[in-house]
């Protein structure tokens, strides 16, 4: 019962000129809620622009959960390692987070995502 597929139009994020990297593919799991631009859009989550090194829960005007604001007092900035831990299991690192994402268990995929976010942040400076 294999599906016969007709892709009516390109689906997500526009057709890339080259195959997406592993990190870019992983970012598709974040894409519906997080952009890489300057933020202040209508998305449900804050922008991931310059996320590595950025202060935790610090996007102006964004309504962070009390849990993440408490977390920010102990962990003031997103590091590569901290992002990796968060992406692995958001609820475990920040119990009560409002981010409804249950994590990426594959360590290589996580690493590719965090590196992609780091690179995307640098390129948008």
């Amino acid at each position, binding site marked *: *019962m*294999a*599906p*016969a*597929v*007709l*892709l*009516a*139009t*390109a*689906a*997500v*994020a526009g057709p890339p000129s080259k195959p997406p990297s592993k990190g870019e*593919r992983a970012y*598709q*799991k974040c*894409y*519906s*809620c997080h952009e890489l631009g300057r933020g202040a*859009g*209508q*998305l*449900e989550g804050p922008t991931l622009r310059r996320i590595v090194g950025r202060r935790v829960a610090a996007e102006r005007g964004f309504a962070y959960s009390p849990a993440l604001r408490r977390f920010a007092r102990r962990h003031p900035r997103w590091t590569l390692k901290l992002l990796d831990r968060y992406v692995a299991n958001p609820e475990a690192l920040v119990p*009560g987070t409002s981010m*409804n994402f*249950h994590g990426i268990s594959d360590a290589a995929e996580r690493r590719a995502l965090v590196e992609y976010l780091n690179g995307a942040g640098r390129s948008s400076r």
Partner: protein
Amino acid sequence: MSFVRTLAAAAALVLTAAPACAQAPKTDTPATATTRVFQLPEGARVHDVAPAPDGTIWYTAQRQGALGILDPKTGKVRHIPLGEGSAPHGVIQGPDGAAWITDSGLNAIVRFDPKSEKLTVWKLPEDAGYANLNTGAFDGDGIHWFTGQNGIYGRLDPKTGAMRIFSDPDGRGPYGIAATPSGDVYYVSLAGSHLAKIDRKTGAAAIVEPPTPAQGARRVWADSKGNLWVSEWNSGNLSRYTPATNTWTMWKLPGDKPKAYAVYVDERDIVWVSDFAANAVLAFDPRTQTWTKYPGSGEGANVRQILGAPGEVYLPESGTDRIMVVRTARPG
């Protein structure tokens, strides 16, 4: 609310509904409504629910990659694993009596046959990419339509397995989807802040802009007359679109800075909407313009979808791993 939380700790308790809509312009006391709270496996992170043909309740255990089956007569729960990587979001009952699941983890539509317990999986095409599949609905011709929050919607013909994927005109955001009594299908876009009607023949989406800019249309449901009710996450409005007159009516949810998430219209045309800010679900009667408040069974209940069967409304609490069942029918 403490008595609710205390009693809800055990499975399958019967509670009298406790309307507590202090800031509502009007309140109503549902003297005949009762609630029962069922505890699910810890960490299930129930997302959506649907009535099954045999009186049980299906739910998506999003974090545990399973379809849950709750027997409300006994409180017993079973989990049907959906496969490695599964993270199911939506579940509905199809016209064939099966559970149809939009599985964001598998990037696939999954059918569960309750008689044979066979699972059938339709993967999205590779070139569609990761869709972040959200919710599904069947049109009047038996076609399964679904949304993907990364910017797509699609159709699956259960008879042939043929699948087509379409891009939302505004990109990312397609979320709730529902069919009207006449069999038409509408969906809403959370990031795109629009309602859209799908042309069932061509698949094209005709956008219907709600009056409130950037309102964050999250979920949609149809009433018995074919009007579309929309829960607006950003604005905190409950809005109604009347296709026959192309008009909108909006109601601000009572309370401080409401966040309207789920919406469902029951068989009496009572409109149920969850409010994350109030940690409650509100039942709105459009005829009397009254709201009835059903507090969550615990802190941060976070009801992300609502569905029911005649005389019953199901409130899946993603934050407490519980399902609250509201019995609305009058006894006798």
